[in-house]
């Protein structure tokens, strides 16, 4: 394989990983605070629609679209937060409800606001310029990092911010405390409901941006159900990365690679059915899920006999 193909595949790996990383970052915060959030899918779908709607009504500016998607994503996630914290809803069922509402709500609004069915592309969208990083863009292979959209760099910054927030600040400690033991956190004066509201809202905003990335940067249109299970994949990424921001970022790249390799195979005109290629990320996700539960099980079993040893390493 030539250098150009490798660089190209790596660049599309990063492109595909970006929305997954944003969703997974939201998911890992929820996981840390003890919220089982598979509504990432629905939040992102709402974000994807909101971005297109805002772009349409503000005369084609993707910037306002991204901002609008973050805000509307967060507002939408408030419903989930309300039911999970206030009404003690079952997290799984509430998540599925949020996903169903997102599918129904966006296709309803698509019909009502734009009077189309299936898909809509706003007229006169000004796409964002890709950012070329000087020097790096001329280094072979490493140049894949250059020429990405601003959201990719934003997601990297967010990974570092969330890492610092989780492990170096009191707020992060509170989040982990709520997830570990609600009662202990309460005794220490932390309000679990408040912490959960915060993480769910942040995940809503991040998923909103991820959805906007898919609808305004990857392509320039909203189509019904366009998240295609990426939210579930992101959840798997977060589980596989053990809710650690840096690990989650690396796993996102792995999933991005599964997408990118599929695109590469299709481009090379190999005789593989596109349906099989589209399966790659899901198969990888199932494998990752199995692997992470296997290692988790072993760890738990090991921990019984070696409690002291485990404490030392931790």
């Amino acid at each position, binding site marked *: 394989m030539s250098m150009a193909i490798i660089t190209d595949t790596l660049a599309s790996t990063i492109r595909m990983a970006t929305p997954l990383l944003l969703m997974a970052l939201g998911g890992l915060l929820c996981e840390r605070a003890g919220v089982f959030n598979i509504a990432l899918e629905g939040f992102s779908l709402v974000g994807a629609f909101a971005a297109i709607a805002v772009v349409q009504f503000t005369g084609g500016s993707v910037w306002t679209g991204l901002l609008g998607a973050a805000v509307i994503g967060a507002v939408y996630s408030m419903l989930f937060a309300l*039911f999970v914290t206030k*009404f003690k809803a079952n997290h799984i069922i509430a998540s599925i409800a949020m996903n169903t509402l997102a*599918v129904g709500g966006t296709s309803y609004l698509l019909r009502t606001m734009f009077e189309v069915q299936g898909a809509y592309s706003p007229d006169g969208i000004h796409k964002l310029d890709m950012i070329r990083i000087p020097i790096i863009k001329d280094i072979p292979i490493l140049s894949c990092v250059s020429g990405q959209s601003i959201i990719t760099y934003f997601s990297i910054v967010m990974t570092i911010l969330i890492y610092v927030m989780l492990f170096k600040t009191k707020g992060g400690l509170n989040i982990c405390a709520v997830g570990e033991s609600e009662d202990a956190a309460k005794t220490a004066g932390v309000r679990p409901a408040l912490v959960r509201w915060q993480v769910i809202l942040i995940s809503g905003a991040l998923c909103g941006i991820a959805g906007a990335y898919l609808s305004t940067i990857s392509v320039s249109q909203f189509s019904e159900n366009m998240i295609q299970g990426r939210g579930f994949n992101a959840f798997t990424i977060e589980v596989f990365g053990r809710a650690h921001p840096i690990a989650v970022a690396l796993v996102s790249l792995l999933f991005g690679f599964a997408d990118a390799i599929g695109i590469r195979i299709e481009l090379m005109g190999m005789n593989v059915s596109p349906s099989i290629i589209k399966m790659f990320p899901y198969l990888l996700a199932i494998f990752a899920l199995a692997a992470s539960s296997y290692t988790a099980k072993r760890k738990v079993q090991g921990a019984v006999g070696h409690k002291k040893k485990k404490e030392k390493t931790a």
Partner: protein
Amino acid sequence: MKNRENHKIIAAASLVGRQIGLILIALVLATLFLALSGYEPFAIVNGIIEGLTVDIAGTIRWATPLVLAGLAICVTYKAEVFNLGVDGQLYMGAAAATAVAVSIPATMNHGVSLVLVFVSAMVAGAMFAMIPALMKVYLGTNEVVSTLLLNFVAELFVEFLVTGSLRDPESGTNLNASAILNENTWLPRISYFEPSSANIGFYIAIIVMIVLTIVFYKTAFGHEIKIVGSNPVLAKYAGMKPTKTILQVMAISGAIGGMIGAIEVTAVQHRLLAGFNPDFGMDGIVVSLLANNNPVGVLFSGIFFGALKNGGINMERITDVPSAVTEIVTAIIFIIISAKFVLPRFKKMLSDKKEQNKGGK
């Protein structure tokens, strides 16, 4: 004794009342929603009423897969297992049904070929459900995510079949479908409801419902499912094997899922179509929840959701109201049901009333 029975009836009646209240809340919200966006506000309510009276045939057509999906969910839910993979199991069942149907000769006896088609669909569904079940039992994998992911794999697998080996060479470039099946593999439609595609799958659904009711409430296995679901530790002490029970309920659930696939292929479409399933499995969750995971209740809640779906489709055909509004109604019912606040408050109100009555006496 009689007092106890009275109590049971009152409890059941209050439950039914609560669920009906819940449906009404969702419908009121949806009506407001329609009014706000400038559509005919009562379109959805009218659609449901029509579906339960004039157009009962359409309702039965949609209720068949929904009731079965609800039953598939309630089997596992009783054992505290979330099978969100009914959609995937359904696709696998449909694929197996089609594969068998195209390979048996057109001269074969109608009954025999139908049995062959249905058995293979159920086996395929059950086998596909074994993947997440085995992962759960032996690796401790959370079945919620694994089943969701497998749905995409199954859907793509069907797409792979109908664009590849099972593709009808005579169909156009835009239609990804298998050839029309031979008539000896068609599941008969109910002649009374012609020309609707309401089919005898509805009777199958009722039979499955009756069998499950008996299994749940009259057999040791049903008891085991409940104990494994409510208290796995106790189940182990009592000599039961929770892992075995989990595998069994997932197999039953998957088999029912496969059956839905076979019914949709052999009675409604008469061919395998890519992406033919409008998320019956997901709707099955809310069907089962609305029925409080009771098989008999599932029949009624399935018919309600069938009327809702049918009403939405009719509504879109006649007026310009998007049928997606039915999904909004479903989601509202879903989210209210997920909350625990309805029941305890209601209970408190009831007990307060009882005390008041006692005080009065």
